[in-house]
Protein backbone atom coordinates (compact mmCIF):
# COMPACT_ATOMS: atom_id res chain seq x y z
CA UNK A 1 0.00 0.00 0.00
CA UNK A 2 2.86 2.35 0.88
CA UNK A 3 4.37 1.71 -2.53
CA UNK A 4 1.16 2.66 -4.29
CA UNK A 5 1.02 5.87 -2.31
CA UNK A 6 4.64 6.62 -3.32
CA UNK A 7 3.63 6.37 -6.94
CA UNK A 8 0.52 8.48 -6.48
CA UNK A 9 2.51 11.27 -4.83
CA UNK A 10 5.29 11.05 -7.42
CA UNK A 11 2.63 11.45 -10.11
CA UNK A 12 0.78 14.27 -8.36
CA UNK A 13 3.78 16.38 -7.34
CA UNK A 14 5.67 15.79 -10.60
CA UNK A 15 2.56 16.55 -12.63
CA UNK A 16 1.85 19.58 -10.47
CA UNK A 17 5.30 21.06 -11.09
CA UNK A 18 4.68 20.65 -14.82
CA UNK A 19 1.29 22.36 -14.56
CA UNK A 20 2.88 25.43 -12.93
CA UNK A 21 5.33 25.66 -15.85
CA UNK A 22 2.48 25.21 -18.35
CA UNK A 23 0.60 28.12 -16.79
CA UNK A 24 3.76 30.24 -17.07
CA UNK A 25 4.11 29.27 -20.75
CA UNK A 26 0.50 30.02 -21.63
CA UNK A 27 -0.06 33.09 -19.49
CA UNK A 28 3.25 34.95 -19.64
CA UNK A 29 5.73 35.83 -22.37
CA UNK A 30 8.37 33.61 -20.71
CA UNK A 31 10.09 31.33 -23.22
CA UNK A 32 10.62 27.65 -22.30
CA UNK A 33 14.38 28.29 -21.89
CA UNK A 34 13.69 30.99 -19.29
CA UNK A 35 11.24 28.77 -17.46
CA UNK A 36 13.81 25.98 -17.23
CA UNK A 37 16.41 28.39 -15.84
CA UNK A 38 13.80 29.64 -13.39
CA UNK A 39 13.06 26.07 -12.30
CA UNK A 40 16.67 25.12 -11.70
CA UNK A 41 17.44 28.29 -9.77
CA UNK A 42 14.20 27.90 -7.79
CA UNK A 43 15.26 24.34 -6.97
CA UNK A 44 18.56 25.59 -5.57
CA UNK A 45 16.90 28.34 -3.52
CA UNK A 46 14.12 26.11 -2.17
CA UNK A 47 16.68 23.52 -1.17
CA UNK A 48 18.81 26.21 0.47
CA UNK A 49 15.96 27.44 2.62
CA UNK A 50 15.10 23.90 3.58
CA UNK A 51 11.82 23.48 1.72
CA UNK A 52 12.74 21.16 -1.11
CA UNK A 53 14.35 18.39 0.97
CA UNK A 54 11.08 17.48 2.69
CA UNK A 55 9.31 17.52 -0.70
CA UNK A 56 11.85 14.99 -2.02
CA UNK A 57 11.31 12.79 1.03
CA UNK A 58 7.61 12.99 0.43
CA UNK A 59 7.29 12.72 -3.37
CA UNK A 60 10.51 10.91 -4.36
CA UNK A 61 10.98 11.09 -8.11
CA UNK A 62 8.00 13.45 -8.30
CA UNK A 63 10.37 16.05 -6.87
CA UNK A 64 13.75 14.86 -8.20
CA UNK A 65 12.87 14.22 -11.86
CA UNK A 66 11.55 17.74 -12.67
CA UNK A 67 14.27 20.35 -13.24
CA UNK A 68 13.75 21.79 -9.77
CA UNK A 69 15.19 18.43 -8.70
CA UNK A 70 18.30 19.22 -10.77
CA UNK A 71 18.64 22.38 -8.66
CA UNK A 72 18.09 20.28 -5.55
CA UNK A 73 20.91 17.92 -6.55
CA UNK A 74 23.22 20.87 -7.26
CA UNK A 75 22.52 22.44 -3.87
CA UNK A 76 22.72 19.17 -1.95
CA UNK A 77 25.99 18.35 -3.68
CA UNK A 78 27.47 21.71 -2.75
CA UNK A 79 26.35 21.27 0.85
CA UNK A 80 27.94 17.84 1.09
CA UNK A 81 31.18 19.00 -0.53
CA UNK A 82 31.44 21.97 1.81
CA UNK A 83 31.02 19.66 4.78
CA UNK A 84 33.82 17.47 3.45
CA UNK A 85 36.21 19.92 1.83
CA UNK A 86 35.39 23.41 3.00
CA UNK A 87 34.88 26.44 0.75
CA UNK A 88 36.25 24.74 -2.37
CA UNK A 89 33.15 22.54 -2.14
CA UNK A 90 31.11 25.48 -3.41
CA UNK A 91 32.86 24.97 -6.75
CA UNK A 92 33.11 21.18 -6.85
CA UNK A 93 29.92 19.97 -5.23
CA UNK A 94 27.26 20.99 -7.74
CA UNK A 95 28.58 19.43 -10.92
CA UNK A 96 29.87 16.38 -9.04
CA UNK A 97 26.41 15.58 -7.76
CA UNK A 98 24.76 16.10 -11.14
CA UNK A 99 27.57 14.70 -13.28
CA UNK A 100 25.81 11.46 -14.21
CA UNK A 101 22.81 13.17 -15.80
CA UNK A 102 24.81 15.90 -17.54
CA UNK A 103 27.46 13.51 -18.85
CA UNK A 104 24.80 11.05 -19.98
CA UNK A 105 23.07 13.83 -21.91
CA UNK A 106 26.34 14.76 -23.63
CA UNK A 107 27.32 11.18 -24.45
CA UNK A 108 23.89 10.18 -25.75
CA UNK A 109 23.59 13.43 -27.70
CA UNK A 110 26.93 12.85 -29.39
CA UNK A 111 26.03 9.25 -30.21
CA UNK A 112 22.67 10.41 -31.53
CA UNK A 113 24.45 12.88 -33.79
CA UNK A 114 26.64 10.10 -35.13
CA UNK A 115 23.81 7.64 -35.72
CA UNK A 116 20.70 9.70 -36.53
CA UNK A 117 19.43 12.68 -38.49
CA UNK A 118 16.66 15.21 -37.83
CA UNK A 119 13.41 14.88 -39.77
CA UNK A 120 10.87 17.52 -40.78
CA UNK A 121 8.26 18.26 -38.12
CA UNK A 122 4.68 17.04 -38.32
Amino acid at each position, binding site marked *: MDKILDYIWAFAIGGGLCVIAQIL*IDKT*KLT*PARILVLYVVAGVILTGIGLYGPLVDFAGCGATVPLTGFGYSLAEGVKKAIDERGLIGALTGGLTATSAGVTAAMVFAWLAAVLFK*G*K*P*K*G
Partner: protein
Amino acid sequence: MQKGIITLTSRPSIICGASVVGKKEMDGPLARCFDKYDLTDTFDMPTWEQSESEMQRIAFNTAMEKGGFKIHDIDAIFAGDLINQCISSGYGLANFDTQFFGLFGACSTMAESLVLGSMLVDSGKYSRVAAVTSSHNCSAERQFRFPLEYGGQRTPTAQWTVTGSAAVIIGEHSDLPYIAEVLPGRVCDKGINDSANMGAAMAPAAIDTLKRYFDESGKKPDDFSAIFTGDLGYEGSSILVDFLRSDGYDISRVHHDCGLMIYDRERQDVHAGGSGCGCCATVFAGHILPQLKEKKLKDILFIATGAMMNTASIQQGLTIPGIAHLARITVSEGDDGQNS
Protein backbone atom coordinates in the same frame (compact mmCIF):
# COMPACT_ATOMS: atom_id res chain seq x y z
CA MET B 1 9.58 62.35 -56.87
CA GLN B 2 7.24 59.44 -57.50
CA LYS B 3 5.84 58.14 -54.24
CA GLY B 4 2.59 56.49 -55.16
CA ILE B 5 1.15 54.00 -57.59
CA ILE B 6 3.39 53.31 -60.56
CA THR B 7 1.40 52.62 -63.72
CA LEU B 8 3.09 50.22 -66.09
CA THR B 9 1.86 51.64 -69.38
CA SER B 10 3.10 48.74 -71.50
CA ARG B 11 1.38 46.20 -69.22
CA PRO B 12 4.08 43.54 -68.97
CA SER B 13 2.82 39.95 -69.14
CA ILE B 14 3.14 37.26 -66.57
CA ILE B 15 3.99 34.57 -69.06
CA CYS B 16 4.17 31.50 -66.87
CA GLY B 17 5.02 30.21 -63.42
CA ALA B 18 6.01 27.03 -61.67
CA SER B 19 5.83 25.84 -58.09
CA VAL B 20 7.66 23.23 -56.05
CA VAL B 21 6.53 22.15 -52.56
CA GLY B 22 7.09 19.66 -49.76
CA LYS B 23 4.95 17.15 -47.91
CA LYS B 24 2.79 19.34 -45.71
CA GLU B 25 1.81 21.48 -48.70
CA MET B 26 0.85 18.30 -50.58
CA ASP B 27 -1.37 17.39 -47.64
CA GLY B 28 -3.08 20.76 -47.94
CA PRO B 29 -6.10 21.91 -49.94
CA LEU B 30 -4.04 23.25 -52.86
CA ALA B 31 -2.08 20.02 -53.44
CA ARG B 32 -3.15 19.53 -57.05
CA CYS B 33 -2.04 23.06 -58.04
CA PHE B 34 1.68 22.51 -57.62
CA ASP B 35 4.00 21.38 -60.40
CA LYS B 36 6.64 19.42 -58.48
CA TYR B 37 6.99 18.03 -54.99
CA ASP B 38 9.10 15.83 -52.75
CA LEU B 39 7.33 14.13 -49.88
CA THR B 40 10.60 13.74 -47.97
CA ASP B 41 11.21 17.52 -48.16
CA THR B 42 14.88 16.78 -48.91
CA PHE B 43 14.88 17.00 -52.72
CA ASP B 44 17.72 14.48 -52.49
CA MET B 45 20.07 16.94 -50.83
CA PRO B 46 22.17 16.31 -47.70
CA THR B 47 21.28 19.53 -45.83
CA TRP B 48 18.05 21.53 -45.54
CA GLU B 49 19.73 24.65 -46.92
CA GLN B 50 20.73 22.71 -50.01
CA SER B 51 17.21 21.26 -50.27
CA GLU B 52 15.87 24.78 -50.38
CA SER B 53 18.37 25.81 -53.07
CA GLU B 54 17.42 22.74 -55.06
CA MET B 55 13.75 23.73 -54.90
CA GLN B 56 14.63 27.11 -56.45
CA ARG B 57 16.60 25.45 -59.20
CA ILE B 58 13.75 23.05 -59.97
CA ALA B 59 11.15 25.83 -59.84
CA PHE B 60 13.13 28.05 -62.22
CA ASN B 61 13.87 25.21 -64.65
CA THR B 62 10.22 24.10 -64.60
CA ALA B 63 9.00 27.62 -65.26
CA MET B 64 11.36 27.95 -68.23
CA GLU B 65 10.20 24.57 -69.53
CA LYS B 66 6.53 25.56 -69.24
CA GLY B 67 7.17 28.77 -71.16
CA GLY B 68 9.35 27.03 -73.72
CA PHE B 69 12.33 29.19 -72.81
CA LYS B 70 16.05 28.56 -72.67
CA ILE B 71 18.28 30.43 -70.25
CA HIS B 72 19.38 32.96 -72.91
CA ASP B 73 15.72 34.01 -73.20
CA ILE B 74 15.81 35.29 -69.61
CA ASP B 75 17.60 38.63 -69.20
CA ALA B 76 17.72 38.64 -65.41
CA ILE B 77 16.52 36.85 -62.30
CA PHE B 78 15.18 38.61 -59.20
CA ALA B 79 15.36 36.15 -56.33
CA GLY B 80 15.29 35.95 -52.57
CA ASP B 81 14.71 33.75 -49.55
CA LEU B 82 14.91 33.82 -45.75
CA ILE B 83 18.23 32.14 -45.06
CA ASN B 84 21.11 34.37 -43.92
CA GLN B 85 22.52 36.39 -46.81
CA CYS B 86 20.03 34.75 -49.21
CA ILE B 87 22.17 31.69 -49.82
CA SER B 88 19.25 29.59 -51.05
CA SER B 89 18.94 31.89 -54.04
CA GLY B 90 22.67 32.26 -54.53
CA TYR B 91 23.31 28.52 -54.64
CA GLY B 92 20.02 27.53 -56.25
CA LEU B 93 20.47 29.89 -59.18
CA ALA B 94 24.24 29.59 -59.51
CA ASN B 95 25.65 28.79 -62.95
CA PHE B 96 22.59 29.96 -64.85
CA ASP B 97 23.95 32.10 -67.63
CA THR B 98 22.01 35.26 -66.82
CA GLN B 99 22.07 38.37 -64.62
CA PHE B 100 21.03 37.99 -61.01
CA PHE B 101 19.63 40.25 -58.33
CA GLY B 102 19.41 38.89 -54.78
CA LEU B 103 16.56 40.51 -52.87
CA PHE B 104 15.43 40.45 -49.26
CA GLY B 105 11.90 41.42 -48.44
CA ALA B 106 11.28 38.60 -45.99
CA CYS B 107 7.98 36.92 -46.93
CA SER B 108 7.13 39.79 -49.30
CA THR B 109 9.99 38.89 -51.63
CA MET B 110 7.81 37.42 -54.41
CA ALA B 111 5.84 40.67 -54.62
CA GLU B 112 9.05 42.70 -54.41
CA SER B 113 10.54 40.66 -57.29
CA LEU B 114 7.36 41.09 -59.37
CA VAL B 115 7.35 44.84 -58.70
CA LEU B 116 10.99 45.38 -59.64
CA GLY B 117 11.00 42.91 -62.52
CA SER B 118 7.84 44.29 -64.12
CA MET B 119 9.07 47.89 -63.76
CA LEU B 120 12.28 47.06 -65.55
CA VAL B 121 10.44 45.22 -68.31
CA ASP B 122 8.01 48.13 -68.62
CA SER B 123 10.92 50.55 -68.90
CA GLY B 124 12.35 48.51 -71.75
CA LYS B 125 15.62 47.76 -69.98
CA TYR B 126 14.86 44.06 -70.00
CA SER B 127 12.53 42.09 -72.21
CA ARG B 128 12.06 39.03 -70.03
CA VAL B 129 12.89 38.44 -66.35
CA ALA B 130 12.20 35.78 -63.72
CA ALA B 131 11.07 36.24 -60.12
CA VAL B 132 12.10 33.31 -57.91
CA THR B 133 11.67 32.86 -54.16
CA SER B 134 11.74 30.02 -51.68
CA SER B 135 11.42 29.03 -48.05
CA HIS B 136 11.93 25.68 -46.36
CA ASN B 137 10.36 24.84 -43.03
CA CYS B 138 13.43 22.97 -41.81
CA SER B 139 16.06 25.55 -42.77
CA ALA B 140 13.89 28.34 -41.38
CA GLU B 141 13.18 26.54 -38.09
CA ARG B 142 16.89 25.88 -37.68
CA GLN B 143 17.80 29.49 -38.29
CA PHE B 144 14.99 31.35 -36.52
CA ARG B 145 13.64 29.04 -33.84
CA PHE B 146 14.72 25.70 -32.46
CA PRO B 147 16.39 22.51 -33.68
CA LEU B 148 13.97 20.31 -35.64
CA GLU B 149 13.71 17.63 -32.97
CA TYR B 150 13.33 20.10 -30.10
CA GLY B 151 10.13 19.46 -28.20
CA GLY B 152 8.38 22.75 -27.85
CA GLN B 153 4.80 23.91 -28.02
CA ARG B 154 3.99 26.61 -30.54
CA THR B 155 1.71 29.44 -29.51
CA PRO B 156 -1.64 29.67 -31.33
CA THR B 157 -0.62 32.89 -33.11
CA ALA B 158 2.55 31.36 -34.58
CA GLN B 159 2.74 30.60 -38.30
CA TRP B 160 4.18 27.67 -40.16
CA THR B 161 6.97 28.29 -42.66
CA VAL B 162 6.01 26.85 -46.03
CA THR B 163 8.37 24.43 -47.73
CA GLY B 164 8.13 25.64 -51.27
CA SER B 165 9.61 27.63 -54.08
CA ALA B 166 8.10 29.29 -57.10
CA ALA B 167 9.37 30.97 -60.22
CA VAL B 168 7.37 33.40 -62.33
CA ILE B 169 8.46 34.70 -65.71
CA ILE B 170 7.55 38.25 -66.70
CA GLY B 171 7.93 39.50 -70.25
CA GLU B 172 6.94 42.28 -72.61
CA HIS B 173 3.21 42.64 -73.23
CA SER B 174 1.94 39.45 -74.86
CA ASP B 175 -0.18 36.76 -73.17
CA LEU B 176 -2.52 37.62 -70.30
CA PRO B 177 -2.48 38.38 -67.42
CA TYR B 178 -0.74 41.72 -67.21
CA ILE B 179 0.80 43.71 -64.43
CA ALA B 180 -0.99 47.04 -64.73
CA GLU B 181 0.15 48.88 -61.64
CA VAL B 182 2.56 48.40 -58.79
CA LEU B 183 2.82 50.12 -55.43
CA PRO B 184 6.04 49.51 -53.50
CA GLY B 185 5.61 49.34 -49.75
CA ARG B 186 6.93 51.44 -46.90
CA VAL B 187 8.49 49.90 -43.82
CA CYS B 188 5.94 50.12 -41.00
CA ASP B 189 6.78 49.36 -37.38
CA LYS B 190 3.93 49.46 -34.90
CA GLY B 191 5.89 48.11 -31.97
CA ILE B 192 5.08 44.40 -32.12
CA ASN B 193 8.06 42.35 -30.88
CA ASP B 194 6.46 38.91 -30.63
CA SER B 195 7.98 36.76 -33.38
CA ALA B 196 5.24 34.23 -32.70
CA ASN B 197 2.69 36.75 -33.97
CA MET B 198 4.12 37.93 -37.27
CA GLY B 199 0.65 38.49 -38.70
CA ALA B 200 0.16 41.33 -36.23
CA ALA B 201 3.62 42.73 -37.01
CA MET B 202 2.99 42.72 -40.77
CA ALA B 203 -0.67 43.82 -40.83
CA PRO B 204 0.13 47.57 -40.40
CA ALA B 205 2.27 47.49 -43.56
CA ALA B 206 -0.52 45.80 -45.52
CA ILE B 207 -3.02 48.31 -44.19
CA ASP B 208 -0.69 51.17 -45.16
CA THR B 209 -0.11 49.94 -48.72
CA LEU B 210 -3.73 49.01 -49.42
CA LYS B 211 -5.07 52.25 -48.00
CA ARG B 212 -2.59 54.24 -50.08
CA TYR B 213 -3.67 52.26 -53.13
CA PHE B 214 -7.39 52.81 -52.63
CA ASP B 215 -6.96 56.47 -51.65
CA GLU B 216 -4.88 57.29 -54.71
CA SER B 217 -6.62 55.12 -57.31
CA GLY B 218 -10.14 55.98 -56.18
CA LYS B 219 -11.01 52.30 -56.61
CA LYS B 220 -13.10 50.30 -54.19
CA PRO B 221 -12.30 46.79 -52.91
CA ASP B 222 -15.29 45.35 -54.75
CA ASP B 223 -13.88 46.59 -58.06
CA PHE B 224 -11.53 43.62 -57.86
CA SER B 225 -12.29 39.95 -58.31
CA ALA B 226 -9.96 39.23 -55.40
CA ILE B 227 -7.39 40.78 -53.09
CA PHE B 228 -4.71 38.29 -52.12
CA THR B 229 -2.46 39.03 -49.18
CA GLY B 230 0.74 37.03 -48.71
CA ASP B 231 0.92 35.45 -45.31
CA LEU B 232 -0.89 37.54 -42.73
CA GLY B 233 -2.43 34.35 -41.44
CA TYR B 234 -5.48 34.27 -39.23
CA GLU B 235 -4.33 37.00 -36.84
CA GLY B 236 -3.03 39.46 -39.41
CA SER B 237 -5.92 38.95 -41.82
CA SER B 238 -8.57 39.84 -39.29
CA ILE B 239 -6.55 42.89 -38.18
CA LEU B 240 -6.25 43.99 -41.83
CA VAL B 241 -9.97 43.63 -42.53
CA ASP B 242 -10.91 45.44 -39.31
CA PHE B 243 -8.64 48.43 -39.81
CA LEU B 244 -9.46 48.91 -43.49
CA ARG B 245 -13.14 48.77 -42.65
CA SER B 246 -12.69 51.57 -40.15
CA ASP B 247 -10.94 53.50 -42.94
CA GLY B 248 -14.00 52.98 -45.13
CA TYR B 249 -12.73 50.11 -47.27
CA ASP B 250 -14.53 46.82 -46.72
CA ILE B 251 -12.37 44.11 -48.27
CA SER B 252 -14.02 41.20 -46.45
CA ARG B 253 -15.88 39.93 -49.53
CA VAL B 254 -12.84 39.79 -51.79
CA HIS B 255 -9.94 39.20 -49.40
CA HIS B 256 -8.01 35.94 -49.34
CA ASP B 257 -4.74 35.22 -47.56
CA CYS B 258 -2.28 32.80 -49.17
CA GLY B 259 -1.14 31.72 -45.68
CA LEU B 260 -4.70 30.60 -44.94
CA MET B 261 -5.26 29.01 -48.36
CA ILE B 262 -2.23 26.73 -48.51
CA TYR B 263 -3.07 24.71 -45.38
CA ASP B 264 -6.20 23.44 -43.70
CA ARG B 265 -5.89 25.06 -40.25
CA GLU B 266 -8.40 22.69 -38.72
CA ARG B 267 -6.58 19.58 -39.81
CA GLN B 268 -2.90 20.44 -40.26
CA ASP B 269 -1.72 21.92 -36.96
CA VAL B 270 -0.31 25.07 -38.51
CA HIS B 271 -1.84 27.43 -35.94
CA ALA B 272 -2.33 30.85 -37.58
CA GLY B 273 -1.46 29.63 -41.11
CA GLY B 274 1.48 29.47 -43.49
CA SER B 275 4.31 31.95 -43.94
CA GLY B 276 7.66 32.32 -45.66
CA CYS B 277 8.87 33.48 -49.07
CA GLY B 278 7.55 30.25 -50.55
CA CYS B 279 4.01 30.76 -49.20
CA CYS B 280 2.48 33.44 -51.41
CA ALA B 281 4.93 32.50 -54.19
CA THR B 282 3.67 28.92 -54.58
CA VAL B 283 0.04 29.95 -54.10
CA PHE B 284 0.46 32.65 -56.72
CA ALA B 285 2.24 30.46 -59.27
CA GLY B 286 0.18 27.34 -58.60
CA HIS B 287 -3.30 28.64 -57.83
CA ILE B 288 -3.79 32.33 -58.65
CA LEU B 289 -1.90 32.58 -61.96
CA PRO B 290 -3.75 29.66 -63.63
CA GLN B 291 -7.07 31.24 -62.67
CA LEU B 292 -5.99 34.52 -64.23
CA LYS B 293 -4.90 32.67 -67.37
CA GLU B 294 -8.36 31.06 -67.55
CA LYS B 295 -9.97 34.43 -66.81
CA LYS B 296 -11.70 32.99 -63.75
CA LEU B 297 -10.07 35.93 -61.99
CA LYS B 298 -10.08 39.14 -63.97
CA ASP B 299 -8.55 41.89 -61.91
CA ILE B 300 -6.70 41.26 -58.68
CA LEU B 301 -4.47 42.93 -56.14
CA PHE B 302 -1.56 40.77 -55.04
CA ILE B 303 -0.01 42.18 -51.91
CA ALA B 304 2.67 40.28 -50.06
CA THR B 305 3.89 41.21 -46.62
CA GLY B 306 7.21 40.61 -44.91
CA ALA B 307 8.42 40.72 -41.32
CA MET B 308 11.91 42.22 -41.35
CA MET B 309 13.58 40.61 -38.39
CA ASN B 310 16.44 38.30 -37.57
CA THR B 311 17.42 36.20 -34.57
CA ALA B 312 19.58 38.94 -33.05
CA SER B 313 16.84 41.56 -33.30
CA ILE B 314 14.33 39.20 -31.71
CA GLN B 315 16.66 38.24 -28.85
CA GLN B 316 17.40 41.91 -28.27
CA GLY B 317 13.68 42.47 -27.88
CA LEU B 318 13.51 44.85 -30.84
CA THR B 319 10.23 45.45 -32.60
CA ILE B 320 9.47 43.81 -35.95
CA PRO B 321 9.12 46.19 -38.91
CA GLY B 322 6.78 45.03 -41.67
CA ILE B 323 6.67 45.72 -45.40
CA ALA B 324 3.98 45.16 -48.03
CA HIS B 325 4.40 45.45 -51.79
CA LEU B 326 1.41 45.52 -54.12
CA ALA B 327 0.90 44.54 -57.73
CA ARG B 328 -2.34 44.89 -59.62
CA ILE B 329 -2.70 42.07 -62.09
CA THR B 330 -5.42 42.11 -64.69
CA VAL B 331 -6.55 40.24 -67.78
CA SER B 332 -7.64 43.47 -69.41
CA GLU B 333 -5.55 44.64 -72.38
CA GLY B 334 -5.59 48.31 -71.58
CA ASP B 335 -8.40 50.63 -70.57
CA ASP B 336 -9.27 50.34 -66.95
CA GLY B 337 -12.59 48.86 -66.08
CA GLN B 338 -12.89 47.11 -69.43
CA ASN B 339 -12.31 43.42 -69.37
CA SER B 340 -10.89 42.48 -72.73
